[in-house]
């Protein structure tokens, strides 16, 4: 059963009327938006649209069900973009779903992830109250930072209805350099060197097979060629057959492809990681499609085996993961929890959850 509210008051009514609720945006993260037995789905796409956007301010306010694609299109018309680079744009991800899932993409390397750009939030708590947090100016210290709290909350603390973000100007020109290395170790070593260097990257991605670094530069077009040259020099001028420079439409197309995170059959899992943990994890992985974003801090991994195996692998590596998608509905409904690996629960979180959702309407557990 799905409800599709068109007004915030309808969200509030729905919350008060249902014992178990699951908000859904574009449904692009199936593992997070497929209801359990007793859950009523709240289709949030009815609450859609930009509410405030003054390009000169670099801030916008939109309803939570607004498709990211719509936002990006409007921003793009003014040379602006969402610096945290949410994935699944083409597939129909919404702003609310992106925040609730806590997802960022390759461009987060430059200025940060979704938590770093959210300014304000309105949400309906577990008792049906509409609550506001934060504001719509780029800096605000009044009250608790509930906007940040909502990042990654999976709809379990409240149902997002409205969001405010700050945005940045998109660089006038970009270029992407792909460099392959003889080994993963060599690629990691280069990654470390680059990450502490004075070069500034819009993206700094690592792929394991073949060991490749993908570096995206952005800025004024007149400076870009020199910067690219300096960068190649820094990398020891890799041989022609080990490097590839992308520019113009092919470059943009490449990144649109990355944004889809289309790794084929199986589960798609988000795993926060650190570069120092990559080698150990890699020894346990084989052909799974995957990509490490943001200088080795964010792994998107494709998993074909039973999820319990990944769960125990992550535990042995001291990592945690969030299952985002499964290719079949069975994959998804059979999941005990989208959280796998090391359990991150703690008293602080439990207390705050209970405060916002005392009747556990948003909890997937019975």
């Amino acid at each position: 059963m799905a409800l599709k509210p068109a007004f915030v008051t309808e969200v509030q009514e729905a919350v008060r009327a249902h014992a178990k609720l699951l908000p859904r945006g574009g449904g692009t993260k199936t593992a997070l938006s497929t209801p359990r037995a007793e859950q009523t789905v709240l289709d949030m796409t009815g609450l859609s649209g930009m509410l405030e956007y003054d390009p000169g301010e670099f801030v916008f306010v939109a309803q939570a069900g607004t498709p990211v694609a719509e936002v990006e299109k409007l921003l793009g018309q003014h040379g602006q973009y969402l610096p945290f680079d949410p994935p699944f744009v083409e597939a129909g991800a919404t702003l609310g779903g992106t925040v609730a899932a806590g997802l960022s993409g390759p461009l987060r390397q430059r200025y940060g992830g979704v938590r770093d750009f959210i300014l304000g939030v309105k949400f309906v708590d577990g008792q049906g109250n509409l609550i506001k947090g934060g504001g719509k100016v780029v800096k605000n210290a009044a009250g608790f930072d509930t906007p940040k709290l909502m990042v990654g909350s999976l709809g379990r603390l409240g149902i997002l209805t409205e969001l405010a973000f700050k945005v940045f100007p998109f660089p006038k020109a970009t270029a992407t350099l792909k460099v392959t290395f003889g080994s993963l170790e060599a690629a990691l070593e280069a990654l470390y060197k680059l990450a502490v260097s004075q070069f500034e990257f819009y993206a700094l991605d690592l792929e394991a097979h073949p060991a490749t670094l993908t570096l995206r530069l952005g800025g004024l077009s007149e400076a870009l060629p020199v910067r690219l040259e300096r960068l190649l020099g820094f990398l020891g001028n890799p041989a022609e057959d080990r490097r590839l420079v992308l520019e113009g439409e092919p470059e943009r197309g490449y990144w649109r492809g990355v944004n889809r995170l289309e790794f084929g059959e199986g589960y798609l899992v988000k795993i926060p990681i650190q570069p120092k943990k990559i080698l150990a994890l890699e020894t346990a992985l084989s052909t799974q499609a995957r990509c490490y974003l943001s200088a080795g801090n964010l792994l998107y991994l494709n998993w074909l085996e039973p999820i319990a195996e990944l769960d125990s692998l992550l535990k042995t590596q001291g990592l945690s993961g969030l299952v985002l998608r499964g290719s079949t509905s069975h994959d998804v409904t059979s999941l005990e929890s989208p959280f796998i690996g090391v359990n991150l629960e703690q008293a602080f979180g439990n207390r705050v959850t209970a405060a916002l959702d005392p009747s556990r309407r948003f909890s997937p557990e019975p």
Partner: protein
Amino acid sequence: MSLSANPAGLLADLARALPQERLLSQPAQLTPYESDALTAFRARPCAVVLPETSQEVLETVRLCAKHQVPFLARGSGTSLSGGSLPIDGGVVIGLNRLNKLLKLDPQERIAVVQPGFINLHVSNAAAPYGLYYAPDPSSQPVSTIGGNLAFNSGGAHCLKYGMTSNHVLGAKVVLPTGEVVELGGESLEGLGPDWLGLFVGSEGLMGIALEIRLRLLPKPEKYHTLLAAYDSLGKAGEAVAAVVASGLLPGAMEIMDSLAIEAAEAAVHAGYPMEARALLIVELEGETPQVEAEAKYLSEVIAQSGPYEVRVAKDNDERMRIWKGRKAAFSAVGRLSPDYIVQDGVVPRSKLGQALSEIERLSHQHGLRVANVFHAGDGNLHPLILYDGKIAGELERGEVLAGEILKMCVALGGTITGEHGVGMEKKEYMPEMFTPQDLEAMHRIHRSVDPDELSNRGKMFPSGEAPALSHGAHPLEQAGVISRE
């Protein structure tokens, strides 16, 4: 204080838990802790505890919980909103001796520090590796990471890379109930609700951070620091809007008005143009070729904004002087007036000019001078309202003026505080921004973490206890332990 509070019992237990010289309870020991950098408020704690280990902090918190006596963490006491104002009769937990750098991993670009570690010392420690810690509140040579975390402090260079919250990866925290939790992690990315994000900026109401993991950034290759002098504050405000709209993304954009220039110049001899009515500092940072190219655009945008003089820092020394002056400006204003109130409202950047004119008007109306020195790129105003507490009525007029400025910020679509926090000072203005329901929800979150409201009781929420502007008998006096004869 709640009825069940037992300060005498707490003091007895603390005396057993801590060596005598680190449990302060004599009047001369307590007096200096009665205020933070907002001296209009004072309150006397029943004791000041100076722990040297996390364990001692934990124990103190647990004893406070046991005896139901409110407590407050204190870093360097530089809060400008009464954040580190003691709770009358409560305990102050001074964290400045917990000032160790626990770990510095240049490769992973991480520093782990104790809460009393000084902000500037993080960058100093990271400097040999070409790294730095980005958030730079003007108080950075003094203020602690614990205090920065509690107030989500910002600074001149937070335009591009954000405030404290954007640079804290994790924290080990003792909750007011005495439980210890780990928030956040080691990665830049996280999973599940951003608990750490909620804790940062919670103004000490949710417990005490014992260890804090910070993210370090590589130092920019090149800085380009430009000074533009204007004959009006409005023009400087509009210049900021123009730079923002141009699509340039400077690392910092700051404005000082003539009073602030006068004070800062007297303090550090920065070499500012003294006749300017307003001074705009814009700093570009990044890769050299990029910065050099951006500098050309910046010059064009600035030229069109009508400055009467533009200067660019020739070398690092000159750059440092410019920033030293800017960062000393708040304190330096103490040269102009015995007392002042610093406000911290934010307005949309396109409304800066309008806001500044309105402040000027209010200043005339109330007959009090207002100095302005602020983070213009963020729209974060810092009007310093100058008054003389000895002149009857000036403080009250100043407070009215401050309130009107805050209301104006909210009316323009902004907020009552950008970085100094609500603390004690602005809590009565929270209803300007939030509905009773919003506040009730925050209160619910608060009480879930601190059911007895022990941690920094009475701050941030408008319904909190009023501060004690004068103090009564010391609890030890009441208990007959000390007397003041």
